[in-house]
């Protein structure tokens, strides 16, 4: 029992580290692709957490990533941090509300990406008192569907190879 617990926290720690690395690499080397939209590579690690350890795994990886990544980049408590936190919070809330066992990973990944974008746009509208930012929402949602599909497929493939290695 104790052995399993140690293994679970070790895997979640490694997934969080992978999420932070993806987030930093994406910020530094890839940058925004369309408008201010990023692919969301860090979400792959959160989705693997969901596949391996359920909702709890998703929440832990997302929470560690959203706090540690800006801490390492020196942007903690800046405007970008609050916007990112709003996106991750809505995404986590969405996954917590849904009965994940009834849905496919691809659908959950798309929903997570869409709710992440929605949270970020709402945060910008609120922080900068700019309701006009809502005009960008349809573009973000369409891009999120494509990004969610891609990250969901990668996460599914990665989890398939990780499960036998980690004996889960």
């Amino acid at each position, binding site marked *: 029992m104790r052995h399993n617990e140690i293994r679970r926290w070790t895997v979640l720690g490694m997934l969080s580290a992978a999420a932070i690395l993806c987030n930093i690499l994406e910020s530094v080397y890839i940058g925004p692709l369309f408008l201010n939209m990023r692919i969301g590579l860090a979400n792959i690690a959160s989705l693997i957490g969901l596949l391996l350890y359920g909702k709890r795994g998703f929440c832990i990886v997302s929470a560690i990533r959203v706090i540690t990544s800006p801490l390492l980049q020196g942007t903690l408590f800046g405007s970008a941090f609050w916007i990112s936190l709003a996106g991750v919070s809505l995404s986590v809330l969405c996954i917590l509300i849904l009965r994940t066992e009834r849905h*496919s990973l*691809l659908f959950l990944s798309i929903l997570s990406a869409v709710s992440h974008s929605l949270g970020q746009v709402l945060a910008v509208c609120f922080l900068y008192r700019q309701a006009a930012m809502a005009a960008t929402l349809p573009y973000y949602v369409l891009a999120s569907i494509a990004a969610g599909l891609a990250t969901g497929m990668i996460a599914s493939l990665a989890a398939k190879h990780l499960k036998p290695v980690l004996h889960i």
Partner: protein
Amino acid sequence: MKKTLQKKELLCIAGLILICLAWILWLKRPKEHVRVDVIHDGKTVLEFSPDEDAVYHIDGDCGGLDVEVKDGRWHVIHEQCPNHICAHTGWASAEDMIVITCLPNDIVIRMGEYTYEAQ
């Protein structure tokens, strides 16, 4: 957890895509007498018409930026901020209604008032 997308999920995603496309079409409807507002720290610091080609400088929290207006479109140039997202956003116009934001400078460039063309 299911492995592939189910019929209900596909319908849900298709519905979402249709709503977004309809929203974009509605945003892109013809407009005339467009005015663009530049907002810094919650206050409108500049208003311009996209019909007149010009370059405007706006002071911001990080050193400010320039807005170039050309052929009815506008974009950010010479921005002094760490992430350059505002410049990467590219050209905005009355048709696409893209809002350009520079968070480090606390500057938002968005469409102001306009009237619609008679159909």
